[in-house]
């Protein structure tokens, strides 16, 4: 994010940033969403599912995790920032959960949902 001397001064003095800076930031955010054509609802669903998939492999800090859209040069990127607490020892196959059936064929989303349900209890793996 570009910053100017004035922005820094404003920050130090606890003043509002120049309105052009606010305009730029608001535009970048709204355009990232406009360009991706994703509704907030879909974005939230995607965010949840990404967390679930990642949580199968590593223990992540859900509070600190963040998935957002960023845009530069008309390219929109999905940026995920998922702080890892520690990795879960990989099993031979995608990690099988304490309870679940691992029939090789359950659908992706179903698997994700299952891992979500059990993730609270498996931190001591």
């Amino acid at each position, binding site marked *: 994010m570009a910053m100017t001397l004035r922005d820094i001064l404003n920050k130090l003095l606890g003043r509002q940033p120049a309105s052009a800076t606010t305009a730029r930031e608001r*535009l970048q955010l709204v355009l990232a969403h406009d360009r991706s054509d994703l509704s907030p609802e879909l974005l939230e669903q995607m965010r949840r599912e990404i967390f679930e998939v990642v949580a199968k492999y590593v223990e992540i800090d859900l509070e600190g995790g963040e998935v957002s859209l960023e845009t530069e040069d008309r390219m929109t990127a999905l940026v995920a920032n998922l702080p890892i607490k520690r990795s879960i020892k990989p099993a031979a196959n995608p990690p099988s959960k304490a309870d679940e059936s691992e029939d090789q064929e359950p659908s992706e989303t179903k698997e994700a949902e299952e891992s979500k349900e059990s993730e609270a209890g498996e931190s001591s793996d």
Partner: protein
Amino acid sequence: MAPTTRTILICSGKGGVGKTTLTANLGIALGRQGIRTVVLDADFGLRNLDLLLGLENRIVYTAQEVLAESCRLDQALVKHKQEPNLALLPAGNPRMLEWLKPEDMQRIASMLAEQFDYVLIDCPAGIEDGFKNAVAAAKEAIVVTTPEVSAVRDADRVIGLLNTQGVSPIQLVLNRVRPKMMANQEMLAADDVTDILALPLLGLLLEDEQVIVSTNRGEPLTLTKSNSPAARGYANIARRLQGEDVPLMDPAKEGRGLRAKLWQLMQTKIF
């Protein structure tokens, strides 16, 4: 047939940012350089290009009659009295919108391309059918925006649509720039807008009261001897379109003296 004819769409998404004024002034400025230019009013719903050019009383036929083949193209073209290199093809009746198709606009544009070096298409605001029809006829585009969040957002939408239609190159004109507000960082800077929209800047036009005066009279600024900031801006855009290397004005440097220099330092991006 002029194979090198440039067919340029002048569009913005948002209304009222200066599309039609730019079309009229560019038309005159190009004509002044001896280039055969035609301006096509593709805003059938709310046409105004005739009014800005002062040609509203000289319209006999329009694009509608040309398409219906009830008149020849040269009968519908209105030649500008003071700038004979410029002609206007007026928009037809708003009811044309009910049947007009992209192919119709393509047909008109290719007819015009046989006689002119530049075809400037004044696009309607919005991104509905009128816009789609106009885009179909264009090879390149100039997107007009102002340094305001709503205009930039709408421009972004339009650029996306132009990209999917294969219109290229697309260049940006930033209109209604207020140097003082920009220097005070109370207005988006030119760099901000070009970064966000990822388009090259074709020109920058200052907010200028003379534009209103010239519209009142139906005499585009480029037609008069005006040396107002906008008049210079329009002329520079025409020269850049022709490939001339004309340096862009830096609104931050418009101010003089210590105060302006201090502001400039304050808005230098350091990281």
